[in-house]
């Protein structure tokens, strides 16, 4: 069990607690998107496949997908985002979390980046 955030190349973060994976987007990603005005959330109970765009973030100028870093069942969504999508801009790593996915077995997150590795990765973006 780890409290540390891990990052994907698509700029999502994940927080692993047992077999539950909480997912959000990085500070870099929210800044790139600009003012987020609508979050098209999945439903609790939906099955998502690794690599699938399971949620859409709408800023004024564009829509961006959030990709699932793991396969599993959506067990929680951040319902506050329905009325306050700006939470993702204001608190991307905390209050702006998006979903929790329950995986079968142990989450396979070995190829995700640590915070330091992600910071290095951003230098090349």
């Amino acid at each position, binding site marked *: 069990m780890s409290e540390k955030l891990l990052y994907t190349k698509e700029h999502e973060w994940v927080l692993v607690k047992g077999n539950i994976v909480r997912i959000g987007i990085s500070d870099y990603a929210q800044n790139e998107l600009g003012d987020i005005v609508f979050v098209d959330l999945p439903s609790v109970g939906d099955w998502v496949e690794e690599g699938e765009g399971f949620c859409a973030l*709408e800023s004024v*100028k564009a829509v961006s997908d959030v990709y699932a870093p793991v396969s599993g069942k959506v067990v929680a969504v951040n319902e506050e985002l329905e009325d306050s999508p700006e939470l993702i801009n204001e608190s991307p790593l905390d209050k702006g979390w998006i979903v929790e996915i329950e995986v079968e077995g142990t989450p396979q997150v070995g190829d995700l980046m640590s915070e330091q590795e992600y910071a290095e990765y951003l230098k090349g973006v």
Partner: protein
Amino acid sequence: MKQTPLTAKHRALGAKMIDYAGFEMPVQYTGLVEEHLTVRSAVGIFDLTHMGEFELAGSGALATVNSLCTNDASQLQVGEIQYSCLTNERGGIIDDILVYRTEQGFLLVVNAANTAKDYAWIEQNLKPDTQLADRSNELTLIAIQGPKSAPLVEEVLSVSVADLKNYTFMEPEYKGVQVLLSRTGYTGEDGFELYFPNEFAEELWDAFLTHGEKYGVKPVGLGARDTLRLEARMPLYGNDIDEHTTPLEAGLGRFVKLHKEFVGRDVLLKQKEEGVQRKLVAFTMIDKGIPRQGYPLLTLDGEEIGAVTSGTHSPSLDHPIGMGYVRVDLAQPGTEIQVQIRKKLAKAKIIKGRFLA
């Protein structure tokens, strides 16, 4: 990528730069929504140097313009401007442009992405005794838009704009050089567009920012330019109109004068007599979700009737809005339709007129 004489200024202001029509342009400075609302409540300045400008002179200039454009340029007095379309033989829109009647002839202001195409088309269709010159690389274009734009322009250029009506222009001097100031814009607000030689670009840009401080001026990028024009229901070339749509389908009939000859007139006359098959409509969302270009439009029964051409979350209304073509029998204001947003169908309602009151 081409730059404008203001590129260094945009970078210094921390703008996010993008490639737009081959130009490195600012898409936003501090934030799209903030910039948008500044134009609605105070004043914003825009670098629009990527737009193209052509001069037409000589005794054949009027005949050339009138044979290529849908609007009637013979109605223009010196100092007046009209919105017009260049059309092809099928009545499709090659570009939507502004036509300025000058002492020497005409100044045509065209969309950046169409500059080369338009120039070739006009050159190919010049009437005898007509000179065509491309001034795009010599002129800087700054727009000053918003309810506080008039006092700011008056202060910076030491002029009075009290008698400058919409769609007219004046040619004041700046440091002994004649510049062109028109009361035009693409935001739905009162505003001005200023054309002048590149050498004054940085100092005039700075002057508008400095003098504008007390009016709350902000530089505004192309992102907010798009949301501002969409709220004002102004079409964007490449999104809402192109060579496969006609001015009549796009609701631009009042800029089409069928009593004179021009390329595509016969097709448009026939279309007017028979009625269009589809129409560009504006709609506001009833259900949640933001319409985007290319999303299908459907009836409430699920029959596909067209597609979204522009869509956004309106910053002024804090509500999603869009435009798109639908079958003509479904184009009546008040009609409810559906937008397919990813896997979901979301209801929308066709509205009359602009999105803003």
